[in-house]
């Protein structure tokens, strides 16, 4: 499995632990990657409010690079993934755009979760597990961007199961969570903080009611909201939550027996130490 890896801004900043755990996991799982040379921000939801041309040019530039490399794109960030899927969709519908970009073919854009769940597969992961996470209850949270507006591969948009399969592959028990595709409010945190904290608070408080050992995510923005903003939600609601939030790559890395330091687990704001001690 060979992919052109597009990290996006988050994986080099606030989600550096997502990148660390992904890179640590890639080789054992047979994922060969090459980082997009001289990549730039995809514009996410911000560029659209500035210029339509900019919001299309930014992801289009990455498509052109992927076409030249003759590789498909792999994106761990859900926001980058959706932005690139939008330009792919536009290119499929508009042959003039394909000509203007001089694309020989339209590269595929895959989210890391799809690569792990489908291309690698739960069975292959189970075979590599060194420390089964028996007795650990992991609550999967997808957020809104992984499945909407475009579904994740063949997954249901309302009830995706990719993460549950991966959690089971580690030996942990996935916790059924009705709020798993609700929005965490991440994109509103700067413009409408109260609304964002309310949305995030609903996710965290409902998750807490199910008493999981950890929340598992595959989106940098969701991780930031659920982990870094957990104190702010506690302050607003007056209730202690104290739930560790792990990237799916970190959970898989722990099960594969990889070094915790290489998985970036020490970078989380809500400590996962009690959980990790149970696993050891």
């Amino acid at each position, binding site marked *: 499995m060979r992919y052109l890896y597009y990290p996006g801004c988050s994986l080099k*900043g*606030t989600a550096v*632990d997502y990148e660390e755990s992904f890179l640590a996991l890639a080789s054992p799982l047979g994922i060969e990657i090459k980082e997009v040379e001289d990549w730039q921000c995809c514009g996410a939801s911000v560029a659209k409010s500035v210029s339509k*041309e900019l919001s299309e*040019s930014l992801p289009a530039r990455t498509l052109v690079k992927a076409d030249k490399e003759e590789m498909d794109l792999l994106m761990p960030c859900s926001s980058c993934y959706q932005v690139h899927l939008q330009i792919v969709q536009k290119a499929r519908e508009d042959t003039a755009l394909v000509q203007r970009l001089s694309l020989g073919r339209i590269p595929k854009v895959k989210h890391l979760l799809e690569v792990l769940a489908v291309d690698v597969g739960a069975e292959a992961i189970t075979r590599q597990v060194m420390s089964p996470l028996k007795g650990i209850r992991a609550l999967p949270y997808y957020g809104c961007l992984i499945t909407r507006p475009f579904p994740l591969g063949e997954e249901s948009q309302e009830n995706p199961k990719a993460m549950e399969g991966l959690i089971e592959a580690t030996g942990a028990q996935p916790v059924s969570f009705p709020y798993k595709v609700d929005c965490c409010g991440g994109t509103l945190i700067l413009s409408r903080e109260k609304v964002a904290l309310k949305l995030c608070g609903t996710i965290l408080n409902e998750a807490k009611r199910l008493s999981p050992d950890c929340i598992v995510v595959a989106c940098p923005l969701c991780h930031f909201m659920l982990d870094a903003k957990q104190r702010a939600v506690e302050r607003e609601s007056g209730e202690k939550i104290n739930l560790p939030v792990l990237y799916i790559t970190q959970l898989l890395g722990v099960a594969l027996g990889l070094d915790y330091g290489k998985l970036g687990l020490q970078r989380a*704001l809500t400590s996962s130490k009690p959980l990790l001690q149970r696993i050891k």
Partner: protein
Amino acid sequence: MAMIKKKGRINELRLGLRIALSKFPPAHPFEDAVLLFKLLRRGKLS
């Protein structure tokens, strides 16, 4: 569609700080400062 020439890297932190500063004064200045410090200590701000 003409490809826009790249002039520099867009940085999410700079964008965020610019928006945060434009909403002066911040609603929770102390908590925001603590969070910023924690993120810095954990190497999460590039």
